[in-house]
């Protein structure tokens, strides 16, 4: 292989159980840079992290490990409540949250190159990529030729028993960015993990998250909010393995698609043998604002245990007539009502943003999407500006 070249990650981000290939919903194929690291001294994560299943699959894990200049390991001691968020800055990060501890893990990608795990390879991922869905690979398309830079993050988290972990993911990059984010989490007994994902921009966002509830009475709550517009592409894979008894999972995905955006969301709750007493719910709500949008949703409940409950549902459509009427009665025409949903995504992400740096990234994206006036209004109204200045 050449020193600096591109490689193809073929059919990654797959769910545990796949559907018909002709639906082209099972996976994504990505053209990514490859920089030779021969001779580099690489600090690898402890072996324990190797066993963690990550959302985008082993092929992506191996690629990121091969590209990362180093791995970051963070440990939160047993019983410690860590106030300062753990901000992911490298491509390969492992976080160990010991028993009874609490921690917040933040991944944030923004700007023209992506701020996390940005690959400086000027080989322009995607320039050599296959065309969109008509490509030889029948399952999915490669990155489009418009994309110039690739960023990537691999985050593996171990939550020991009774730990409390908050995961915050923000992707708000420019259209020239292809971002790849693979997250793997394991939760022991009574651990409670909540994750919030905000995918608000990037030419291609490919994101996978797998959470394995290994211990009894463990809990996982996932909220995923996304915006796809113009020619953006979103490929999301959520997998929850419920292995321990009496586990609880609640997955809520919702977003807005406009322009020619293409989105595939795969969400699987796997009630593994031994997970009796567990309950898992997955619900997606997609708002479609354009006739040219491509939306694919693949909710799956796998069940190999008695005495469990698995629920899923999806609502796909435009803004409901009741909502349109209500908003019109308060002065908003239909297109303004639709714009409100987009603004709301940014409002919500800014409320969730834990640091000034993250807010700055979101604000830049909000300016590009909503315009400068509204973006500044968001920050001022949410009283975030003062905090940002202090921290700056």
């Amino acid at each position, binding site marked *: 292989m050449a020193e600096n070249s591109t490689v193809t990650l073929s059919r990654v981000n797959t769910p545990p159980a796949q559907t018909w290939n002709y639906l082209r919903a099972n996976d994504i194929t990505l053209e990514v840079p490859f920089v030779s690291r021969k001779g580099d001294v690489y600090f690898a994560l402890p072996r324990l992290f190797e066993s963690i299943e990550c959302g985008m699959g082993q092929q992506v894990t191996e690629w990121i490990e091969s590209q990362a200049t180093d791995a970051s390991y963070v440990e939160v001691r047993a019983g410690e409540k860590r106030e300062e968020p753990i901000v992911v800055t490298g491509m390969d990060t492992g976080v160990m949250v010991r028993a009874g501890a609490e921690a917040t893990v933040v991944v944030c990608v923004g700007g023209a190159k992506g701020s996390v795990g940005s690959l400086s390879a000027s080989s322009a991922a995607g320039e050599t990529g296959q065309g969109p869905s008509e490509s030889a690979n029948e399952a999915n398309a490669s990155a489009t030729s418009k994309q110039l830079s690739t960023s990537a993050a691999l985050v593996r988290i171990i939550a020991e028993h009774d730990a409390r972990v908050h995961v915050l993911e923000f992707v708000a990059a420019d259209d020239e960015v292809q971002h790849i984010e693979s997250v793997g989490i394991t939760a022991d007994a009574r651990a409670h993990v909540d994750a919030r994902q905000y995918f608000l921009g990037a030419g291609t966002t490919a994101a996978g998250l797998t959470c394995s509830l290994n211990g009894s009475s463990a809990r996982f709550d996932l909220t995923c909010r996304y915006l796809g517009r113009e020619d953006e592409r979103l490929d999301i894979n959520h997998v929850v393995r419920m292995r321990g008894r009496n586990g609880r999972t609640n997955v809520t995905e919702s977003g807005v698609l406009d322009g020619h955006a293409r989105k595939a969301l795969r969400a699987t709750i796997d009630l593994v043998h031994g997970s009796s007493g567990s309950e898992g719910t997955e619900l997606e709500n997609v708002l479609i604002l354009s006739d040219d949008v491509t939306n694919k949703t693949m909710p799956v409940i796998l069940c190999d245990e008695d005495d469990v409950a698995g629920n899923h549902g999806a609502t796909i459509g435009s803004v409901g007539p009741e*909502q349109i009427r209500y908003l019109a*009665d*308060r002065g908003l025409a239909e297109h303004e009502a639709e714009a*409100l949903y987009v603004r709301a995504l940014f409002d919500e992400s800014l409320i969730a943003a834990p640091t000034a740096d993250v807010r700055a990234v979101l604000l830049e994206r909000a300016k590009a999407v909503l315009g400068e006036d509204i973006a500044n209004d968001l920050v001022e109204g949410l*009283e975030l500006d003062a905090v940002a200045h202090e921290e700056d």
Partner: protein
Amino acid sequence: MHSQLLRVSDVSAGTEDKPILHDVSLAVGAGETHVLMGPNGAGKSTLGRVVMGDPTYQVTSGSIFFDDADVTNEAADKRSLAGIFLSYQAPVEVPGVPLYSYLRTITQKRPELKMTARKFRARVGEIADQLDMGSSFLTRELNVGFSGGEKKKIEMLQLLLLRPKLAILDETDSGLDVDALSVVSKGIEAYRQDCDGSLLIITHNTRILERLTVDRTHVMVQGRMVAEGPGSLIDDIDAHGFEQFERAGEDGGAA
């Protein structure tokens, strides 16, 4: 009567296959408080929605003038911006939209209410205090997961924030416990005092009127306006019910 703010003249309206309102006329002066009463199914809520411009209903004859402008064919959002506010009996849930984003957007649509985001937030805080609302509600999704009483408080919050010229309150008191009813009544009173707006209150419950001076009372039966009188007419209805008006309605004319 003060100068007429709303004038509904001989309006007949209904859905595609069902006429509901028959030659209804009603006039509300600036700064006045009117009460619209009638038995269930009389068409009171429909009249409120027709005035607001709900596209579910078609006006087949008659006209609606608001603030000296013919709004009969105007869309609801235009009527809202002109100063008409309809408070919902069952406010609609809007998932995906935090209350803050919503309030800020509808306020910014009105040039006369434009203010900096900081002042806006302070203003919302003041009104929320007036209505005994907590501070965390702003980040919650609009009307999602709120109790019936909380939803009505959010309606009142919007009423006080938007300061419309005319507020149509469609059974705002329905389903409220005593405490929530008291808060909502205070909200309506505050609207009258602070905004000097007009009120058209659709209600079955006279308790919500205790803090208000009612200028006129209207009675509807079977889609027709069958009686109009002073505020004291409410006491008469309270004592004797709608039977006398229902008979008039069967005769097809106004009392």
